[in-house]
């Protein structure tokens, strides 16, 4: 391991003076979820696209480093200081978890930013036979019975809960948030009528709407999604709430040469312009949101500050 690291450092310093950088051995793509998780699926789709579009001269392989909501994967990347053939896919939790967890010593800010790739919108859904036709109906019902309505979602630092906190604050209402570890359980709880509302990915909701099981009240996005032309965004529905995006992008270990950063930036810039990528983004109803390393650094700061405020208001203990 140490030897490996030494090699990597030597390699890094030797290439630092070279004209450019080209990978010479398989590239490792680190994700923080197990197989089947959001980033894992994106990474595997990316491997296929990079190959198809011939953007990498070498193979790329996915390494799963699950644990602590990104903490383990971030630490793994930090350990690989100077390693030029390893990159990782981050999400917003890589920034939020260090805010609440003492153990999360490595944050996105300790890694080398490469590019932001995606923003993932969401929609607010209820069961098809629920009495709420608009988000306003739901909020009014919550006002009449404070704390009785329920929302299913992930952990309290997840976007699901952030949306709830923002809406509660904007309307002075309160409803329960029930955490479920698996996405399947969250949907099952809604469809079974055990909870009243959930924040869900548009694609997942789409199928349940088509089958007549679900209704969408609002979109957590700045603009309307193509698949939901008649559903208002939060702002259009009359709620003054800035949607917090679910973000995904690419980072590299700390201390890599500038040429290396430029190389990766170039690869992902090119990837984001390919037809395969555009189709992937469209199929999944994501939002193309490429930003280069410099812009991404600014985004970190804004995102962290926004999240810290929201979490503190939610009564979550922040440590950083």
């Amino acid at each position, binding site marked *: 391991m140490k030897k490996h690291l030494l090699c990597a450092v030597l390699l890094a310093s030797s290439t630092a003076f070279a004209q450019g950088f080209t990978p010479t051995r398989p590239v490792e793509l680190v994700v923080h979820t197990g197989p089947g998780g959001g980033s894992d699926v994106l990474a595997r789709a990316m491997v296929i696209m990079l190959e198809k579009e011939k953007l990498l001269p070498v193979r790329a392989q996915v390494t799963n480093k699950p644990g602590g909501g990104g903490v383990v994967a971030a630490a793994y990347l930090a350990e690989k200081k100077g390693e030029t053939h390893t990159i990782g896919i981050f999400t917003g939790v890589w920034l939020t978890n260090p805010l609440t967890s003492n153990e999360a010593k490595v944050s996105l800010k300790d890694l080398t930013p490469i590019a932001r790739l995606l923003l993932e919108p969401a929609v607010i859904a209820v069961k098809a036979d629920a009495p709420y036709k608009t988000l306003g109906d739901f909020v009014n019902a919550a006002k009449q019975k404070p704390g009785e309505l329920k929302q299913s979602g992930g952990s309290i630092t997840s976007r699901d809960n952030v949306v709830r906190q923002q809406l509660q604050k904007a309307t002075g209402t309160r409803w329960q948030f029930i*955490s479920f570890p698996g996405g399947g359980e969250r949907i099952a709880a809604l469809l079974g009528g055990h909870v009243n509302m959930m924040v869900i990915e548009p694609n997942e909701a789409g199928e349940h709407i*088509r089958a007549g099981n679900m209704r969408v009240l609002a979109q957590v996005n700045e603009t309307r999604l193509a698949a939901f032309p008649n559903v208002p965004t939060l702002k259009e529905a009359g709620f003054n709430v800035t949607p917090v995006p679910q973000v995904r992008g690419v980072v590299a270990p700390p201390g890599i040469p500038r040429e290396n950063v430029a190389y990766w930036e170039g690869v992902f810039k090119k990837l984001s312009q390919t037809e395969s990528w555009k189709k992937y983004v469209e199929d999944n109803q994501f939002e193309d949101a490429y930003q280069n390393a410099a812009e991404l650094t600014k985004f970190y700061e804004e995102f962290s500050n926004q999240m810290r405020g929201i979490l503190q208001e939610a009564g979550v203990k922040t440590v950083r």
Partner: protein
Amino acid sequence: MDVLAGLMQGFGVALQPLNLLWCFVGVVLGTVIGVMPGLGPPATIAMLLPLTFLMNPASAIIMLAGIYYGAKYGGSTTSILLNVPGESASVATCIDGYEMAKKGRAGAALGIAAIASFIAGTVGVLGLMLIAPPLARVSLAFSSPEYFALMALGLAMVVLLGGESMVKALLATLVGLWLAGIGTDLFSQTSRFTFGRMELLSGIDFVVVAIGIFAIGEVLANMHERGGAQAIPVPRGVRNLLPTMQDMKDSRFAFVNGSVIGFFIGVLPGAGSTIASFISYGVEKAVSKHPEKFGHGAVEGVAAPEGANNSETGGALVPMLTLGIPGSGTTAVLLAALVLWGFKPGPLFISENPAMFWGLVASMYIGNVMLLILNLPLVPLFAQVLRAPVYVLYPVILGISVVGVYSTSGSLFDVWLLAGFGLLGYLMRKLDFPSAPLVLGLVLGGAMERALRQSLMMSDGHLSILVSRPVSAVMLSLAVLILLIPLFGKFNAWRLKALK
């Protein structure tokens, strides 16, 4: 939907030579990764995803599903032979499987495991084919209070798994529950018992504990024996290596029990095959005419959990295919694969892609037959492993354990944990603490705590939610009944007899 017409269409798809080949490739791969501890079906399927883009989707799903259920066949092998659970679903198989092996009946145990897997696997597919859509709707009525009751029922099985001393069994359970509590709390995002270690943030992997306590603990305890441990006897002749008619007769009920319990628990998105196998083991022992044989090499103790973890596969595909809801790691990857191929898994998936669904169902019937034909001849072969002298066998077990644990997480920290739990397993054997209750506490603890807290959030803090819902009330009453068994003198005598 006309089942017969669908099935005909399905066999039309599955019997195409290319699809037969992919089905075979899938089940062989599944068996191999099932035999090896560590690398499980989700990781294997994820690695093969790029390859599937070169195939047509029906062939691809047939192959990937083959890996999924094929792995359940292979999983029992190391549990029975080496006391190393290949995956969490085969921990329950260790209890009686390894005891059978120690008595020279490894072949019979492996054979029964294969037969139980075949029967239950087929029943699982039958269930998937016949009652999937209505069952998926019924399963939605099952929520946190019911999950809590189900876990409580599972935990009550401690009474049946424990050794002579109920106090020791309960202490071991408590340690298991405590281990389950380590990690980041889902509801408050607070870390518990992590001692500042990042590696503990997501808790301790169940497989590390199971392999440590079962495999390493056993090896250490055997090495401690004065004069060296006895080699495990392996009878000669293929005939003596296969299950007898008596074994088959004894396992009749276990086949049914495993098939049914496994399937229904599999349908629930929040349960899983480990819980299914433990509950089916407990039920088998509770209704057995000779419960005293359990834990000492009862053939039903292998048939029931092995059956349960195979029919669970059919069950787990129900919510995935009918609602687009994944209930386990493997179904999550399969679902992701469907999306990547351009499908839209959800409530309309089956009706819009009948060839895919029925092709898959038909291929699972074929695949289970292939697995039986593939696995039975391997039984005498695998049984020969035990002929190795202990000074070869034990280092091999230690090696497999370490590699298995390291290959799942790639973390040396987990290897140290493995060593620690090995030592704990050794001490527990020396002090006569039963290890099954600890493992049970660990399996059920996390899910049980979550279900309880979710229930209380749903009811705004009123415990009545647990008993006011009929399904949960029935299961909780059953749990109480089981727990009361030791309190009644008459039953206690039966229980003590059971443990002798």
